[in-house]
């Protein structure tokens, strides 16, 4: 046997042996379709309506057992303040778990900035959460197949399979993932999958008194949220990353990313 032939055969054997058994099973497309009705969940945030009360963060942490003391959260609210002398500030103290009860801006590292009342140009609040992207960078990088996109459009983490490497936390362009301090795995917003599948609104949508947060099936043309997304001027965050986010925002500003 020649060297060339030997190498060719080696490659062939290894390639053949590495085909997973599951790849060889036949899939019945009808069965797959019957199990997955045409649902695609999408989120709509109306930043004009948000007052920064933070009830959504509180409800989310309660519903999903995220420790209140830990500085991690599946959803958070950001405050944007533009001053008349053209300075811009953003903060989200404790992910706005207790809302915004102070007028000073939290600059981090224990520093605060008090802005003169007369100097405030415009200011608004933006709730953030996982965008449940159509092409999620986070699931693509998972080395063990522990995070995935479901057929109805929700990105989930398999807690028994996650090894906690943190690759997905780094990959998410929106900072929506974090390391769960108790479960010791990567964690993120699930769109309250357990509530959705029982026909309930997610905890944050449910808690919002101002209807700034809403959710709907974007594949259903008659869904009120789909109607809003089709007819209003909506935007998404970090469109240039090509992740195709499924959280839409009304009233975005350039600085909101």
């Amino acid at each position, binding site marked *: 046997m020649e060297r060339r032939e030997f190498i060719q055969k080696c490659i062939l054997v290894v390639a053949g042996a590495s085909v997973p058994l599951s790849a060889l099973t036949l899939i019945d497309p009808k069965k797959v379709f019957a199990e997955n009705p045409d649902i695609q969940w999408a989120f709509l945030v109306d930043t*004009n309506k948000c007052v920064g009360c933070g*009830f959504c963060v*509180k409800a989310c942490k309660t519903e999903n057992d995220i420790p209140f003391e830990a500085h991690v959260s599946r959803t958070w609210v950001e405050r944007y303040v533009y001053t008349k002398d053209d300075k811009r500030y953003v903060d989200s103290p404790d992910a706005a778990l207790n809302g915004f009860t102070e007028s000073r801006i939290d600059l981090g590292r224990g520093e605060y900035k008090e802005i003169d009342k007369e100097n405030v140009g415009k*200011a608004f609040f933006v709730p953030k959460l996982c965008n449940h992207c159509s092409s999620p960078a986070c699931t693509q990088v998972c080395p063990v197949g522990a995070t*995935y996109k479901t057929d109805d459009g929700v990105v989930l983490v398999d807690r028994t399979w996650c090894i906690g490497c943190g690759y997905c936390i780094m990959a998410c362009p929106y900072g929506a993932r974090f390391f769960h301090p108790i479960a010791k795995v990567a964690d993120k917003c699930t769109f309250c999958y357990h509530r959705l599948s029982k026909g309930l609104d997610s905890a944050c949508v449910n*808690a919002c*008194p101002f209807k700034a947060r809403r959710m709907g099936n974007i594949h259903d043309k008659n869904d009120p949220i789909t109607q809003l997304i089709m007819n209003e001027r909506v935007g998404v965050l970090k469109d240039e990353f090509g992740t195709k986010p499924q959280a839409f925002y009304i009233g975005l500003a350039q600085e909101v990313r």
Partner: protein
Amino acid sequence: MKSHVWRPLYVVIALAVALLVFRFFYVPNDFGSGKRGFMYSYHRQSNEMEWKNQPVKYSVSGRERMHEYCSECHGEIVKVRSEKLHGIIPCEDCHGPALQHPDNPEKLTIDRSRLLCLRCHTSLPYTTSERHRIPGIDPKTHNTGLECVKCHNPHNPSLEGMK
């Protein structure tokens, strides 16, 4: 046929077979990708059910349905509330998650803290935000140390309704 090339080949084959055997036992059967394909959705299918079976804590969904549900027993107070300004706030935001109330928990833990009211009623000078339309106070000067509910009625917050 005896040749030095066979030995390393056997090693490679043995390794590949060992890997496949290990994989066969270790990886659950339901591992696979749905209609979104391998890149975004290679996962253990039964995990979807695990997430779906998480317990629900905030029991009622939607403000209207919540008012309806709560007024079955607490009719009077829900009626007062839903007609007044605070009618837009879901009951569970202040009264806590209802779970299977009234069985479990029998009595809800109500958040009566000052901090709860300050979420919306801290005065912030943001004229461009909806926040501006909510009456606000300066928590540093407005009856510090007192709980808001000592004077204000949260179910009927108009100043005429003060205790």
